[in-house]
């Protein structure tokens, strides 16, 4: 039989040893983990601009090659910060946490937005990061637009916990590639966003099909989340887009 004193001492020593070990591990591994997150973010940005060959080893060089400018905008569309130096992944725009900015936005506080400008095959591409909610958790992505801000170059989606095989399919090329060549403005120059259409774009009038893509079957709520995310993200950048297109 052990005394209470022994039990308390035992528990205290055990917990302190475990805590020390874990803090040490967390400190030593942090640089590696942060690098992985940076690479992950870069791959998303590049993938939307149709640079798909980025993997863990070449993502950072490719990012520095294609991205020429990183901006921070305010909600009125004014440029707060322009970054053209290297390395590109150190830009304040890249370090901006979209989750925090969207939180400020939802509480009517001043917020800022990042915008990436890439040069690929002589063409300028604007890349807008997005964040929204799916069915089970956050979803995010990037949408790349041509220099007149009308046509989509490509998109990238990611999710934390959408149902595999249903909502989780938003991050497959099959879904993402549908967005290529769609437009976010109509012929009159009005903002239309891009809609994920349940039942397929075949249901839309012929002149609307250029603003829509087929929804995923069995994933209505995730599709709605993608809709809302695209609309909200593009809307926040409208002031900048209107003054630059």
């Amino acid at each position: 039989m052990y005394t209470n004193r022994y039990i308390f001492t035992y528990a205290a020593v055990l917990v302190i040893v475990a805590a020390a070990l874990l803090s040490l591990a967390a400190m030593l591994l942090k640089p590696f983990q942060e690098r992985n997150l940076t690479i992950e973010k870069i791959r998303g940005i590049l993938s939307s601009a149709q640079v798909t060959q980025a993997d863990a080893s070449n993502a950072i060089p490719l990012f520095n090659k294609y991205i020429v400018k990183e901006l921070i905008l305010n909600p009125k569309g004014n440029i707060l910060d322009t970054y053209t130096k290297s390395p590109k992944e150190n830009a304040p725009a890249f370090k901006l946490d979209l989750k925090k900015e969207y939180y400020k936005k939802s509480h009517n506080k001043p917020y800022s937005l990042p915008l990436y400008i890439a040069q690929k095959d002589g063409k300028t591409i604007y890349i807008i990061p997005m964040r929204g909610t799916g069915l089970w958790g956050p979803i995010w992505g990037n949408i790349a637009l041509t220099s007149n801000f009308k046509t989509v170059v490509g998109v990238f989606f990611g999710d934390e916990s959408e149902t595999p095989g249903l909502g989780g399919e938003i991050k497959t090329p099959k879904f993402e590639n549908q967005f290529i060549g769609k437009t976010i403005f109509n012929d009159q120059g009005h903002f239309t966003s891009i809609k994920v259409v349940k039942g397929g774009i075949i249901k839309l009038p012929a002149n609307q099909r250029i603003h829509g893509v087929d929804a995923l079957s069995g994933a209505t709520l995730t599709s709605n989340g993608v809709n809302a995310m695209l609309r909200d993200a593009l809307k926040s950048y409208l002031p900048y887009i209107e003054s630059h297109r």
Partner: protein
Amino acid sequence: MSTKKTEREAIFSPKNMKLITGPLNMNNPITVQVLGICSALAVTVKMKPAIVMALALMVVTAFSNLLVSLLRNGIPARIRIIVQLVIVATLVILVDQLLKAFIFDVSKQLSVYVGLIITNCIIMGRLEAFAMANKPWPAFLDGIGNGLGYGLLLIIVAFFRELLGSGTLLNYQVIPQSLYKAGYVNNGMMILPPMALITIGVIIWVQRYYNRTLIEK
């Protein structure tokens, strides 16, 4: 020390080997002990996460068995479960941190399931049933054995789910494009957890067909 009679067993004596081979078949943690089912459903969509999960679990069971066995004479009985949990949780967080640092893609796929190794019944089950009452080396082997038994089943289930659900194995396309052109489609059901349960059920059925002693009367 020298007064004690040290009848040393060979490191890989038949008795010790049985600790490793037993869980592969006759004492498999999933199909016979029915432990750790839920993670087996979750991480078997593709082979790669299944293999990594199996390795992670093996490392955790082996080392938590070893540590608990080393400490078994000092652990106060009244708080033994808490002590076991602290040891297991520490190891699991270490594994999770290492995965995040060095195999990020896989860690993303495993997401919460690495953390859930803490609550995997295999670990607590083996700690209580074996490590608390046995010497460190056999306890370590028991952990390896159960980790392997779990991993073996995971890999078998993942093999069928990936092959039939995605047409790939370890992300390499194995079902030829010509078959798809001829009208073959991947079975989307295989990607969803219920089919993992059914696959495990079929494995249990096959196993009991060949090992009649496992059939409950």
